[in-house]
């Protein structure tokens, strides 16, 4: 786990560090604060907003500002490459691309004053404006001056260039020349804005102070009415499209509808999207289909998932309901997106929920995606598949039997354990048995036995017979012995007898190379398939093995006795 200071160092090296300046304590603190502001603003160039690095920069910005403001207000003069506080240079960066001072100056900011009691929200807004500039967004609608002006700061004062005006000493300004003037006379109809509204009788006009509660409602409408405004605009435009006298065509409306759709998608509020769909449902069916498909294409789905993932553990029901209304192969898109968004656990959760919803009735794309997914995701999807489409799970699992990841193999095995018998399942278990090791192999053997996969008897036996000089671990040999006994008792008894039978003169006294595993397996399995020769054969090896093996043999003999008593009249 990387620590915060380490992360800060990593991120700082990726972003480049502004120059650290000395001076008075107040100046040093101001330097730290401005550098933190600059770094945080730049950080959006290379990190996604939710990245841990951004969090660290924000924390550093907050704390550096707090320390700087402890010395009083932060009154900065903005020069092309410097920020100056009370005559001291507190920021110096000559690299134009990195310099906060240069960007501020170039965008017309000349002074920046932050009062000591500034709320965090205002510091954040300042950072937001600078970040927008740093990330290179060049809006048609706003520039930095209008953004600062609109911010409505109460504790931050920005002395900014608001525009350019004719110099007082000059005798003419923009548009004042009479030499050439744009004339609109020909473009505006003579009777514009006519007819006037039908005249009404004259009423008595009076002054009346409007109660603030009435105004509060209007202010609320202004502050929170954007989604409603968007819907109203679309409704009005769709109506115009339907009006045979109005030349407004769908092509005029589509771009803004798509922008509004994206706005709603980003906002994480499916009910607005649903309302938009309601309005657009008034369009002709062919137009609807084309338009609606764009509501759930890859780009749209990406926005949906990213916006809806905030603070939720599953796909909201209203989101699934929304997608249900939209045409298109959502499941395939969701699967692709799931693979793309693998790193973000929040996104994954929502996607998992959506996939679960859509794959329940059509699991094929899910099965297909499981084959292509990296191990961790495949595991996640396999579990999902078991939950929503258990019948499709074995097919999906069989595609992953060769997975190198033990945890994934464990999931695969779990699925195959409960699967209906089939040659494919048997083959899958055989492959798992062959290619697994350790605990997983033990589990595979147990499953083979439990499922009564007799076709695998020879494979299990061969495992001990062909294990070479190294043999197999005792627990595995033991498990194979049990399994063989369960799968085909008579055949097992013969095999065990063959394994334990002395081989040549030396073989009477010590196990031959590779034979130990066979002995171990046979000793373990014999008590399950009692035969008259079992005890003798086990006793035959008892004196020629090490202490653990001896205990294993004695234990088997005890079990044989118990078995014999159990069958005695």
């Amino acid at each position, binding site marked *: 786990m990387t620590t915060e200071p380490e992360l800060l160092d990593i991120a700082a090296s990726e972003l480049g560090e502004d120059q650290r300046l000395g001076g008075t304590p107040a100046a040093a603190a101001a330097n730290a604060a401005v550098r933190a502001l600059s770094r945080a603003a730049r950080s959006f160039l290379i990190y996604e907003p939710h990245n841990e690095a951004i969090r660290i920069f924000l924390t550093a910005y907050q704390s550096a500002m707090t320390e700087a403001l402890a010395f009083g207000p932060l009154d900065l003069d903005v020069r092309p490459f410097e920020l100056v506080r009370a005559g001291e240079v507190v920021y110096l960066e000559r690299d134009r691309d990195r310099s906060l001072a240069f960007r501020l100056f170039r965008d017309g900011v000349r002074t920046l004053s932050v009062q000591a009691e500034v709320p965090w929200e205002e510091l954040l807004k300042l950072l937001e404006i600078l970040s927008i500039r740093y990330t290179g967004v060049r809006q*048609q609608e*706003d520039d930095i001056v209008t953004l600062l002006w609109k911010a409505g700061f109460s504790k931050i004062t920005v002395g900014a260039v608001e525009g350019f005006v004719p110099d007082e000493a000059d005798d003419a300004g923009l548009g004042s020349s009479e030499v050439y003037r744009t004339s609109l006379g020909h473009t505006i109809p003579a009777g514009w804005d006519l007819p006037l509204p039908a005249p009404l009788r004259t009423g008595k*006009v009076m002054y009346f102070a409007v109660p603030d509660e009435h105004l509060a409602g209007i202010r609320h409408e202004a502050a929170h009415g954007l989604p409603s405004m968007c819907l109203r605009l679309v409704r009005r435009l769709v109506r115009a499209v339907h009006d045979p006298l109005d030349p407004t065509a769908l092509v005029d409306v589509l771009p803004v509808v798509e922008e509004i759709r994206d706005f709603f998608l980003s906002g994480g509020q499916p009910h607005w999207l649903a309302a938009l769909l309601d309005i657009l449902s008034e369009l002709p069916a062919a137009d609807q289909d084309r338009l609606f498909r764009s509501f759930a294409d890859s780009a749209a789905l990406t926005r949906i998932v990213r916006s809806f993932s905030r603070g939720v553990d599953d796909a909201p029901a209203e989101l699934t309901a929304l997608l249900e209304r939209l045409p298109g192969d959502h499941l395939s898109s969701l699967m692709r997106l799931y693979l793309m968004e693998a790193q973000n656990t929040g996104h994954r959760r929502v996607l998992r929920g959506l996939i679960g919803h859509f794959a329940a009735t059509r699991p094929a794309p899910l099965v297909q995606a499981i084959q292509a997914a990296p191990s961790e995701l495949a595991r996640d999807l396999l579990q999902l598949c078991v939950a929503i489409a258990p019948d499709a799970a074995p097919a999906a699992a069989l595609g992953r039997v060769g997975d190198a990841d033990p945890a994934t193999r464990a999931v695969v095995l779990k699925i195959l354990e409960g699967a209906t018998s089939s040659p494919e399942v048997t083959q899958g278990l055989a492959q798992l048995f062959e290619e697994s090791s350790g605990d997983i192999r033990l589990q595979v053997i147990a499953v083979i036995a439990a499922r009564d996969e007799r076709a695998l008897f020879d494979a299990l036996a061969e495992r001990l017979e062909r294990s070479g000089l190294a043999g197999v671990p005792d627990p595995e040999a033991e498990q194979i012995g049990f399994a063989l006994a369960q799968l085909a008792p008579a055949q097992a008894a013969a095999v065990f007898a063959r394994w334990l039978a002395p081989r040549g003169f030396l073989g009477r006294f010590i196990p031959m190379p590779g034979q130990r595993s066979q002995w171990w397996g046979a000793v373990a399995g014999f008590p399950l398939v009692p035969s008259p020769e079992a005890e003798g054969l086990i006793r035959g090896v008892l004196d020629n093995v090490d202490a653990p093996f001896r205990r294993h043999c004695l234990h088997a003999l005890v079990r044989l006795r118990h078995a014999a008593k159990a069958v005695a009249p």
Partner: protein
Amino acid sequence: MIEPVPGPVDAIGAAQESLGQALGLARAGEDRGLAAMVRDNGERLVRLIQGTLRLTRTHAQDNDAFAQPISELVLTLQTMSDLLGTLNLVVVEDLVYLNDIRIRMDGESSTLGADLRRHGVGGVSFNQPLDAAAWRTLVALVGGPPATPKPRPALQQRLIAEGLAHIELLGVFRFQTANETGRDPLGVAARAVAVLESSCDNLSHDRLPNPLPVRRLVAEILGSGSTTLDSGDSAASPYATHSYRVTQLALLIGAGVGLPDADMQDLGVAAMFHDVGYSGHEGATRTHPGYPPPFERHSTAGARLLLRQHGFHEAKIRRALCAVDHHLDFDDVGGTPSLFGRIVRIAEDFDNLVRPGGGALSPAIALGQMQVGACTRYDPTLFQLFVNAVGRYPPGTKLELADGTQVVVTSFARTPETWAQPTGLVIRGVHGVSRAGVKLDLARGAVVKRVVPD
């Protein structure tokens, strides 16, 4: 790279969230294609002009060295004019702006400002594309020695003499900082009208909307505290004057509501563009340019024009909605019109009732007629705010006082107490005494006898 983490859980996390959303919205509002085009071509245009001016110091005007940059200048200006219409190239403190968009001069300062300032010039308006000959003339004149003592008028006259009257030389500019005092309201109004005319002209020629210059001027109107309904430009078209007056009246209502700065700015821009639909064309064919939309369809035509601006932005939605809603009744069967639509409806009707070419009514009489429409045509709360703001006798109302003096009202309501007692200018004295032009404060004992109909 540092790995991403799941969603936020605290204040810093909430900050991440809001910053992410703000950046997302800003990006959504960006027309990357247009921005790149203006940035790249703007920079190329400035560099070409600079380079060509530099050539004048070492080469004769007919030297072949001019051929390549001049042909590129022709092409670049043509491209930008097709998209943006009139190009205002302004240099302030060595920063270059093209139609109010700052042009990046990566890695070097612009020398264009110094070249222009020799002639007392701070900028150039290109009202139409230039051919190669026109460019050669312009470059030769700007690269040549300045005249004395008034270099800019002299340079302008020479351009006119060369048949280049469509190139407009602009004076030297300086930056205006926030909260600067002493702004001339009439000057601001005149600029607003000019910019509005230019914007509408661009829209009528199928160019993309550019609200930024209008937004800057609205910010200036708001910053200047000006509430004058006088457009400050006698040559302005009645349409542009109407749009300006509607803007001022709408901002009065917005101020009454107590809208925050950002909303006031959006409202001002929306009001400026409320009738922009008349600039459009319907029924255009290859052989016919079409005709302006009639009253019945100018609202949707306006929305169509405004929505040609690419990128999602709240202000754009508000503007377009204002355009489609601004003639709807408050009790419209299709639902309550948008806030800006309701505000502009009041301002629009008022100005249409009083303007020449409209109802030509006395403002006080127009207000009385509108009063009856509160609750049906007009949002009653907003209308009352309007009444409270404009006063019993809105500016332009001619009054006859008890002593027979006639005045024209010059102020909006100043206080609740003096709501029916504005200031005015005497337009006719009594008993043969000429007091025309004398300012009167009706709160100082004057008694209104009647409203003089226009």
